């Protein structure tokens, strides 16, 4: 057609060139603006739980994020952004949140998204009788009411400065009222509609033509292709069988350096591996042993060797440099000193060294971390026996909460309070060190409730000082989120939690 018009009009070379250029611009603009075109093939691990309440891995969250919508979203800079809720108001006392929903949002079956659906979603997630993993998170919600067809109101029992982040929790995609068969039906409101799902193989999704956010999604077809082996995934990326891979180990990421047609993407995160010794009984109950452990570790050397220098050196606190205003650069652990560590071990009653089994899941760079730690700690008199276990064994039956000495991976969160609440407070659900310190609890509680931003910053700084100097955990580094995408796509912006990356904003050129 296009050529046909050109042939009829008979223009000079120059004009012909200009018109072609204009035409291409119009065509290009058209594909980017209105009609989603092209295919984006994303490699990822196989999702296993697609019920939003149980989903947790990046792959699972990526599927949810494509098929459903969150009430509010978090952008790459950890700022809250509208999604299904177009606007919201917070009452003066900080206890009432009122959200306006997008009036034109519809479910994939054609029915409109209403406030009732939001009420159903959060009532389900917080219902203590259902024993869902999210019930603790939403325990501070008093009531949720549909105050209009497209207006929903949350009332809290106590102030929570991070409530909007809680609402944007990975589990909290909005589902249609009455839905129970998650995992087999996918009636979302999101940018993509599930066309076919072959577990352990692939999921094919088509652009949702009625999506309420204009300009999204960018591609006509989204293929999620599942890999059980990351080196196979990277080979597929090199060979052009997939276009995008995220959550790469640093080794494979480094191997893509300078490969034609592939762009590497590197995003800092607050994800970390925590090396922790149980503090509720010997030997970890002796502060001298903990101090010896902290003195024996060379965090910089670990970061260099284990993350190929791509990570950011940690200070033994979960509040990392990513949380700019909360981070206290002055809170640093004692400098590496193996002689002093050895001395402390001797004082603590281990003149001939301390023998410990170090448990670690077999995923990511954790086995490498264990091996490097073994060598570093040996110099200070620790005799470490590394036990690598499949992730399912390490986390199964809560074994990770039982073992004396272990390495655990913690994902990146948009705000730091989460780590304090579930990992370090007395009796917290995932308090793997069994750490219990009244002063810490007081600071953490206050930081988590106060609406005074400066007070919160002060509390977080005190917490970092405390953890860095004498806390029960060693956090040698924060890992980066590493990904790679084939040329020919625009609009890709990877997030610290890869599963929350907005695949709907990616366009094929």
């Amino acid at each position, binding site marked *: 057609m296009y050529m046909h018009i050109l042939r009829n009009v008979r223009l000079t070379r120059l004009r012909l060139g200009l018109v072609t250029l204009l035409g291409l611009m119009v065509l290009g603009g058209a594909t980017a603006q209105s009609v989603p075109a092209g295919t984006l093939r994303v490699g990822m691990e196989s999702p296993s739980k697609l019920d939003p309440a149980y989903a947790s891995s990046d792959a699972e969250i990526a599927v949810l994020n494509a098929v459903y919508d969150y009430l509010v979203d978090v952008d790459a800079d950890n700022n809250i952004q509208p999604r299904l809720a177009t606007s919201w108001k917070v009452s003066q006392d900080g206890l009432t949140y009122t959200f306006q929903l997008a009036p034109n949002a519809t479910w994939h079956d054609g029915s409109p998204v209403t406030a009732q659906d939001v009420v159903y979603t959060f009532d389900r997630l917080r219902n203590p009788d259902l024993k869902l993993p999210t019930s603790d998170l939403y325990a501070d919600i008093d009531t949720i009411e549909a105050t209009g067809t497209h207006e929903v109101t949350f009332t809290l029992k106590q102030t929570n400065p991070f409530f909007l982040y809680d609402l944007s929790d990975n589990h909290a995609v909005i589902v249609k009222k009455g839905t129970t068969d998650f995992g087999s039906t996918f009636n979302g409101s999101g940018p993509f509609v599930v066309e076919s799902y072959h577990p352990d193989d692939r999921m094919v999704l088509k652009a949702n033509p009625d999506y309420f956010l204009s300009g999204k999604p960018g591609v006509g077809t989204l293929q999620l292709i599942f890999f059980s082996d990351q080196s196979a995934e990277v080979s597929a990326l090199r060979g052009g069988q997939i276009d995008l891979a995220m959550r790469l180990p640093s080794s494979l990421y480094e191997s893509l350096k300078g490969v034609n047609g592939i762009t590497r993407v590197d995003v800092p995160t607050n994800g970390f591996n925590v090396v922790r010794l149980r503090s509720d009984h010997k030997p970890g109950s002796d502060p001298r042993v903990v101090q010896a452990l902290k003195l024996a570790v060379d965090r910089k050397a670990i970061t260099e060797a284990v993350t190929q220098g791509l990570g950011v050196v940690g200070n033994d606190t979960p509040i990392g440099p990513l949380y700019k205003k909360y981070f206290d650069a002055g809170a640093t652990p004692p400098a590496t000193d193996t002689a002093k560590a050895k001395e402390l071990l001797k004082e603590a009653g281990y003149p001939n060294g301390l023998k410990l089994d170090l448990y670690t899941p077999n995923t990511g760079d954790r086995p490498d971390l264990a091996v490097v730690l073994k060598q570093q700690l040996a110099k200070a008199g620790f005799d470490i026996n590394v036990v*690598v276990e499949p992730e399912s064994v390490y986390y199964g039956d809560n074994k990770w909460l039982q073992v004396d000495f272990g390495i655990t991976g913690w994902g990146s969160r948009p705000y730091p309070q989460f780590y304090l609440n579930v990992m370090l407070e007395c009796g917290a659900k995932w308090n793997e060190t069994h750490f219990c310190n009244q002063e810490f609890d007081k600071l953490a509680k206050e930081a988590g409730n106060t609406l005074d931003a400066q007070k919160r910053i002060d509390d977080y700084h005190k917490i970092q000082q405390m953890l860095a100097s004498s806390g029960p955990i060693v956090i040698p580094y924060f890992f980066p989120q590493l990904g790679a995408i084939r040329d020919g796509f625009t609009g890709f912006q990877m997030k610290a939690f890869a599963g929350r990356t907005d695949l709907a904003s990616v366009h094929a050129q």
Partner: protein
Amino acid sequence: MASSAAAAARRSAWLRGLLELYRKPSSALGTSLVAVFLILAALGPLATPYGATEQVFTDRSQPPSLRHLFGTDHLGRDVFSRVVAGDRDIFLLAGSGTLIAVVVGTLVGLFATYRGRWAEEITYRFFDSLLAVPALLLALLLLGSLGPSRSSVLAVIAVAYTPIVARVVRSVVLDTKTKEYVLAARMQGESTAFVLGREILPSVLPALAVESALRFSYAIFLVASLGFLGVGVQPPNPDWGLMVSEARDFVYLTPWTLTFPALAISLLVIGVNLLADGLKRVLQVGAGP
């Protein structure tokens, strides 16, 4: 005098056997390969310039050179030293595992088959049930309950291969126990132990030697597979399978960390198999009386 003459005769028989192995290129190659690995395993730390788990921070990810024959991995460990240490480990693990399987399998096979009737029935039906499960699956099941460690791997090899050895023994014993010289010994009132040890065992030995070599090659493979799957020997031990598994993500960055342990597994397994073939020929197993 007589005993030393007999010893000399035995020695020359060994020598003749060895020479016989070198008469065919395939078994010559196999024998040489096994010999090289065996010598390296025996030398162990004497042959290696670095410790197997020693991390030299400044020497990370170095390609093969005179300083590091097989290069270094991303943690600065010398791959040659690790391959040699792994060689010793695999001979010890697969070797002693095979030895246990051969000794237990032979004893059980001899007694159960010689006794016949219910002893034989029960033993072999039990062994059949073990054989119905593939060795690797059986290994994974056992390691799942025992937990990963060196001794568990040893136990796994013994449990997986004892029935197979016992079966081979049985086939020979069934044939031998009706032979006239065995019947004569029994008629003379010799004890069961004597009949089994002096009359039957010698005819089992050639088949057993070949089977042992074959079992050894499978045991090497099993140890490496378990290491690769991460349920066998634990890091930072220089297990070949584990090394291959750890190096997978580094295949583009430091290919030598993958190549050398993988090559070592292949060469040793091929070597032992060729040796087993050679033994079969030299000892005339399966060639009839």
